[in-house]
């Protein structure tokens, strides 16, 4: 209890100056939690601001968190009971399925998966992040801070052009000597600091996920595993037509996480509907063995994922602000490996150490510089932006090269090459080599052409029928929980012409052509006799994935604290 005699504090609660904390951490996901926990361990007074009603209520991930042997920090270093308390099942089995119609070729990826992996668990973000929040609150309270939920930071407090704190929707501005922006993908702070922009679709992936109810016993039975074991399945091939990306299925305690991850530029180019791509995966005959005709979806969700190869910021700081995790583009997606949470944890902890080491240095950028060096020296930046990718991508992604290679592959000669016995032995090796996977160019060749050719040549044929019916988009939206900020839309259309913003009608995961209940809708409007195709927006069904910030002409922010969608699974 704080007891303040009347004449010393101003009893009216006003203050002549803003509140000040030594460190302010924005966002309580794995990156923010790691940063805050480490800061507190260094005895630093740390305030954590989180916009959700509870940490995790805004967060979505596919669901695997890795502990890498080579990483300087893993989540269980910082939070020792993490695996027992906050995670679902460990991944003990790892497969990739190349799909070509009913032809499926399956490779065991366990080697690749276990390379540099101490352990890897499936997680659901609501459970995980809310548990982290508790621990972080305990730790930060000891050094005079704490976690504050329901507060959305909306910008940077500047003095003479220099960053000195943050501004929020719900509170007066807060000053801080050190600011950690761990506010996730579409970080409003990274944007405000001019460190990241939201312009290029090819720098992002879009992830869409369904959490499906299934008894623990049934999971053990259908996936042939025991309690304390879990599986990961990846899917690639022609399931998704020409859209570049793949799918995943992970087992949780008593649910499954099933989802898709696509290159955003490809989604836009193909005018693909994300929920239909997810449904294509869910209803593929291959999955029938695991559903057995029953399908009970608990939650539909979506989130953008930055592609670290392109956007991981090499010097993620400005003044006394540093970027951590998705906010700084630190999301590694190479071939089938998707690693975001682990790098966010590492970066968060390093950012905290960097501040502790430079504490007292008068130069506000000292900590940021140190953090950058630590990211390099720990090898983290090397993983996020592999040099070999930079060497190959210019060639690999070149249209002409792609077309030439695809041309060969699609020719009888190419197919023969793939179908020969040597290829059969080499292909799993290639998939299991982190080096080769890192080189996989981001073209449809890697995602579609090659896998479906493999499927065609080596696959077995799946004869099951998959009769499940996934919910409609209307039902999916209806099942989500929203706390609508009536009268305060958080996204505004700047240009409602179809040319400028029409892509969102397809790419928004809760919108679809000819669906009136989504966020974005295409409408043909007649004004004075001339017809025009326009786009209208209703933000109430929004799941805050960030897609339209990039593919439409909008003024995009997150909703105020506690407002908007609330994920129960995540």
């Amino acid at each position, binding site marked *: *209890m704080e*007891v303040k005699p009347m004449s010393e504090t101003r009893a009216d609660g006003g203050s002549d100056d803003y509140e000040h904390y030594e460190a302010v951490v924005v966002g309580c996901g794995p990156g923010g939690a790691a940063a805050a926990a480490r800061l507190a361990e260094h005895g630093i007074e740390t305030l954590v601001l989180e916009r959700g009603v509870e940490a995790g209520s805004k967060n979505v991930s596919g669901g695997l968190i890795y502990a890498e042997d080579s990483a300087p920090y893993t989540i269980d270093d910082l939070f020792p009971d993490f695996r027992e308390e906050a995670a679902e099942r460990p991944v003990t089995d790892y497969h990739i399925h190349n799909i070509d119609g009913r032809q499926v070729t399956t490779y065991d990826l366990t080697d690749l998966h276990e390379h540099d992996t101490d352990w890897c668990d499936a997680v659901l973000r609501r459970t995980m992040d809310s548990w982290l929040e508790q621990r972080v609150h305990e730790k930060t309270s000891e050094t005079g801070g704490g976690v504050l939920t329901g507060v959305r930071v909306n910008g940077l407090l500047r003095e003479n052009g220099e960053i000195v704190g943050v501004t929020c929707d719900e509170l007066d501005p807060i000053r801080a000597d050190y600011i950690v922006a761990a506010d996730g993908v579409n970080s409003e702070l990274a944007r405000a600091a001019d460190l990241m922009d939201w312009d290029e679709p090819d720098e992002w992936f879009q992830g869409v996920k369904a959490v499906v109810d299934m008894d623990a016993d049934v999971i053990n039975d259908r996936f042939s595993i025991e309690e304390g074991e879990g599986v990961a399945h990846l899917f690639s091939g022609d399931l998704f037509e020409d859209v570049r990306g793949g799918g995943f299925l992970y087992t949780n305690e008593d649910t499954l996480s099933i989802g898709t991850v696509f290159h955003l530029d490809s989604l836009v180019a193909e005018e693909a509907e994300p929920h239909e791509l997810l449904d294509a995966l869910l209803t593929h005959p291959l999955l029938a063995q695991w559903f057995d005709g029953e399908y009970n979806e608990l939650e539909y969700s979506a989130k953008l994922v930055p592609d670290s190869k392109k956007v991981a910021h090499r010097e993620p700081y400005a003044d006394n602000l540093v970027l951590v995790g998705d906010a700084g583009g630190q999301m590694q997606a190479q071939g089938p490996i998707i690693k975001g949470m682990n790098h966010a944890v590492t970066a968060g902890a390093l950012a905290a150490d960097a501040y502790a080491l430079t504490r007292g240095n008068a130069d506000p950028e000292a900590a940021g510089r140190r953090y950058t060096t630590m990211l390099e020296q720990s090898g983290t930046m090397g993983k996020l932006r592999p040099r070999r990718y930079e060497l190959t991508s210019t060639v690999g992604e070149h249209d002409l090269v792609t077309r030439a290679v695809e041309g060969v592959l699609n020719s009888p000669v190419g197919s023969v090459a793939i179908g020969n016995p040597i290829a059969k032995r080499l292909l799993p090796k290639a998939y299991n080599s982190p080096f080769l996977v890192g080189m996989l160019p981001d073209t449809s060749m890697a995602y579609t052409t090659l896998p479906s050719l493999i499927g065609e040549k080596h696959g077995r044929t799946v004869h099951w029928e998959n009769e499940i019916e996934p919910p409609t988009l209307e039902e999916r939206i209806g099942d989500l929980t929203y706390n609508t900020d009536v009268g305060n839309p958080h996204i505004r259309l700047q240009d409602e012409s179809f040319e400028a913003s029409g892509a969102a009608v397809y790419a928004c995961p809760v919108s679809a052509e000819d669906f009136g209940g989504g966020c974005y809708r295409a409408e043909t409007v007649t004004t004075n006799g001339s017809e025009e195709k326009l786009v209208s927006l209703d933000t109430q069904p929004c799941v805050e994935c960030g897609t339209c910030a990039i593919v439409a002409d909008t003024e995009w922010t997150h909703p105020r604290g506690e407002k908007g969608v609330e994920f129960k699974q995540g």
Partner: protein
Amino acid sequence: MTLDPDDYTVDELREELDGIDDVEEVREALETERSGAERKTALEALEERLDALDADSSDDEPTRDKKHVRALVGGDYADMWVFCETQHGELLDVSKEMLGKARELMDGYAEDFGDEEDVVAFLIGDGCADLAEECIAYGADVAVYHDDDRLERFLHKPYTEISAHMARGQGTTESTDWRSYDEPRYTLFPATNNGRDLSALVQAELDSGLASDCSDLFIQPEEVSNPVKTGEPGVKKTFERTLHMKRPDFSGFEYSTILCLDNPDRDFHPQGASVIPGAFDVPEPDHDREGLVVEHDMELEDEWFSVDIESHDTLEAGVDLTGHEVVVCLGRGIGDDPTLGMELGLELVDAFDDAALGITRGIVTSSYQFDGHVEQYSKEERQIGETGQEVEPPLYIAAGVSGAVQHKVGVDESETIVSINTDSDATIRDFSDYFIEGDLFDVLPMLTDAVKSGELTVEAVADGGETDE
């Protein structure tokens, strides 16, 4: 303490005088100077100050007649006072909540300290005598009220003057002989817009402090070692009967407890708080409770009413779709010709005796271009559903509405639901009593004709009318 001009050089005196607002004090100092040193420049300074103060008191510019009010030292305090705010001739809930809490606190006080002190409600307004009675029922022992038709609405100056006058026990003997203390021990205000203003003004007028926006209150002794409060370093002093006022800290993860403690040479009383509405429960009224109702007596000066409320507005409540016999709702099914769709909907509305037009959120947020004469019907104020209005008329007609769950929750309770939709799989079919598969542009005019010709009444539709199913 009076000012002895002899203690100062003339320059110092000038400076000192600037801080003195009491005419009498300056006058006395002038006399002292005249009968003593008789410094010409000092006399000038004193006379100047006197003139300035005289000018002040005749000047009605509000900022200039600020008076320095002296805090008491060693004053006599008792009772817990509660400002009971009213609106449209009723007590606000927060007034009742505070009375309930005050009752509980003062009952505990009697037990803990062996002194029975009262809960005193004070009310200001036009026709608040009855409400004063009501305050007794909600737990007050005494209710003091000031009635004046000029006080119908909250005005800073008169409300502050009256409150302070009441608190100091000024006024005729009959209206004040129920009490024998200098000022209240504790005072509570509601943390409403008006209550917040008044709390700050009154507590300043009484030269005390204020803990604003409190969410909990309790009374207990507090041992303090702060020399500002104890008078000497290293000494502890226990402040008995201290009101602990808890308020959410700026950060929200901690509560601050604010205390309003006397200094050795200056009292901070009444100990004042404003209370967040809803922080306490509304108590059950006991209409048999006995108490004293006192009409406060005070002349109100005309210039306190220099602020006139010339007009006032109840915030635009928008369109009320509830309470009608029929509600016709249009959805995005009108998209092919929004203006025509709207006209057809309005014609059906007009055909009924008592009907209203509603729309779905899908219309509110569309980019449809409505012609001027129907555009007003496309606004949020007519939206039905989860984030709009909820309606439950005897007859609900939905045309071109898909029936998303967020729309459904707004109409579920309607007695009879009739829907028109080209898509026989539309969700709305699941909760319609009658489903007309058809184009609203054809069906709406038919319905309108039927209603006009008397062939279709609410009963007829409820009986099956001429619908399909």
